[in-house]
């Protein structure tokens, strides 16, 4: 059942709303007239986002905090509920990234990343669900990643956190299976053009870049907003997300070898990089945009490569089907 009555204004909480997908989603919800409660670490940036959201039609509430501060998360939820009178949708989105070989990644950084990406989501769910129960309706949207399904080498903490988030969603979906109006949705995007990669902690020795093909954050934001009209347990965003999952299921061994090579060669630049913590412990005050500048030739690039990839995949599948059909028809003839 849809959460949205015609012309109804929802009250939406978004974590990590200062940049990237969170910011794009805040804008898209506001564009549709919904009320948005925004949180992130940087107060000034949040106010800037809130200002642009208000201009395009949404009421806003901002609360600056670190998502790992459990009490602050509950207080944020309380104040958001007080301000808007309800919490219809809670978007768990605040996340940081880290790359590097497992042995060279400091345990401190791994713990901190799990604290942000995983515990932050758990606090969010714990904060939101009591309101959902009380209201009798609500939607928890967890922004995970396709790496949470397929895995990814050289990103131990990130992959662990994203897989765990998917697990958390699966559990909650089954737990609320009898509740008709409480939904838990997981968003599984492929590589998205956001500052995530610009801000990532890095112990790889080489500079990080976004692995192509890159989807724009707006597509993910639109997918998130579409969930309130049409709840789905899991949504993939980007053609690559579906393809890699398919490849992994068809041939897991080959996929692992191929993906190892692909990430090594395409997820990093040639330039060397000293170990760094990125925005893991402290926010990066320099970047507050929706995009990370990874789509070079505007929107067309990502779409083109998606079309191209889909074309090749289609060709391979058609070949496989024809081959199988021929094999069986030959077999029938020999008998």
């Amino acid at each position, binding site marked *: 059942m849809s959460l949205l009555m015609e012309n109804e204004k929802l009250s939406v909480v978004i974590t990590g709303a200062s940049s990237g997908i969170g910011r794009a989603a805040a804008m*898209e919800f506001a*564009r*549709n007239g919904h009320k948005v409660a925004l949180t992130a670490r940087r107060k000034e940036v949040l106010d800037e986002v809130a200002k642009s959201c208000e201009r*395009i*039609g949404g009421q806003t509430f901002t609360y600056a905090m670190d998502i790992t501060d459990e009490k602050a998360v509950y207080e944020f939820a309380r104040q958001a509920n007080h301000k808007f009178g309800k919490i219809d949708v809670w978007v768990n989105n605040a996340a940081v990234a880290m790359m590097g070989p497992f042995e060279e990644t400091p345990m401190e950084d791994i713990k901190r990343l799990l604290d942000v990406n995983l515990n932050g989501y758990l606090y969010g769910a714990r904060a939101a669900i009591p309101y959902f129960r009380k209201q009798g309706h609500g939607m928890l949207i967890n922004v995970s990643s396709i790496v949470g399904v397929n895995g990814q080498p050289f990103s131990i903490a990130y992959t662990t956190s994203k897989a765990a988030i998917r697990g958390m969603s699966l559990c909650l979906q089954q737990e609320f299976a009898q509740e008709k109006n409480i939904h838990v949705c997981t968003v599984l995007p492929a590589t998205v053009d956001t500052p995530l990669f610009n801000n990532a902690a890095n112990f790889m020795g080489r500079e990080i870049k976004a692995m192509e093909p890159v989807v724009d954050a707006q597509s993910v934001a639109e997918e998130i907003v579409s969930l309130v009209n049409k709840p789905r347990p899991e949504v993939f965003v980007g053609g690559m997300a579906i393809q890699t999952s398919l490849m992994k299921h068809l041939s897991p061994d080959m996929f692992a070898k191929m993906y190892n090579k692909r990430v090594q060669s395409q997820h990093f630049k040639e330039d060397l990089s000293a170990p760094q913590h990125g925005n893991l412990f402290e926010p990066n005050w320099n970047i507050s945009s929706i995009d990370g500048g990874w789509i070079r030739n505007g929107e067309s690039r990502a779409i083109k490569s998606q079309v191209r990839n889909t074309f090749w995949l289609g060709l391979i599948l058609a070949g496989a089907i024809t081959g199988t059909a021929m094999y069986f028809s030959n077999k029938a003839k020999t008998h």
Partner: protein
Amino acid sequence: MSVKRETYTKSGRISYFTRIYHTRPVDSPQEAVVLVHGLGISGTYMHFLASELANKYIVYVPDLPGFGYSSKPPHVLNIQELADALRDWARAIDLKKAWYLGNSTGCQVIVDFAIHNSDMVNGVILQGPAIDPYHRTVGDQLLRFVTNTPDEPSAQMLIMMKDYRLCGIRRVRKTFGFALIYETEKFLPKVEVPALVVRGDKDELVTREWAEEAARLLPLGSLRIIEGVAHTINMAMPQELAGVADEFIDNHVKVKEYESATV
């Protein structure tokens, strides 16, 4: 006889397509009129009205971003963003102050634009202001759109089909959603400039009650009904609409001239 010129103007990432109609030289002192198109469509259907008005004024017909021949931003803009785009466009072509005439959803854009940029607007003419709050549901609007169509000129259908294709069905659909949630009636009282509501008496999309209410809600508003015409008067009866618009503009210009002369 008026001249038509077409031009592209860049502001930020967006390239705006504009048709300019004028009889007197562009740089001679004259009142400027901007015609803002409706939902999904481009400025093409303003041609006849623009040609009429160009006998006396300099007329600008821009395509808003995403529509017609202007460039397409990656996301679909809502009414407020279109209003900001209209402001960016006016700044980019260096249009200090003008009269704005809109059809249908173009009226919503003009209303939002006039509220936030009253220093750039002499006055507004809202022809068939969308969206009638008494019938603000998807089904009702679609039904009214269909029943309104037989009363429109048939050339309108061809222009519309071409423009919808240029715009893309996804963008038309989403913009319709945004137009639907923009509660025009809440914003009308904030329009500080002189305003005229024009309604065709066969208009199914804008009912008489709504047109009357809209004129009442506008602090400096008045209402004119044109008989024998439906929602798109700029296409069906350009001469009549140009006459009504001219009268409105002329009156205000004369009042202003008189005021400045007496002071």
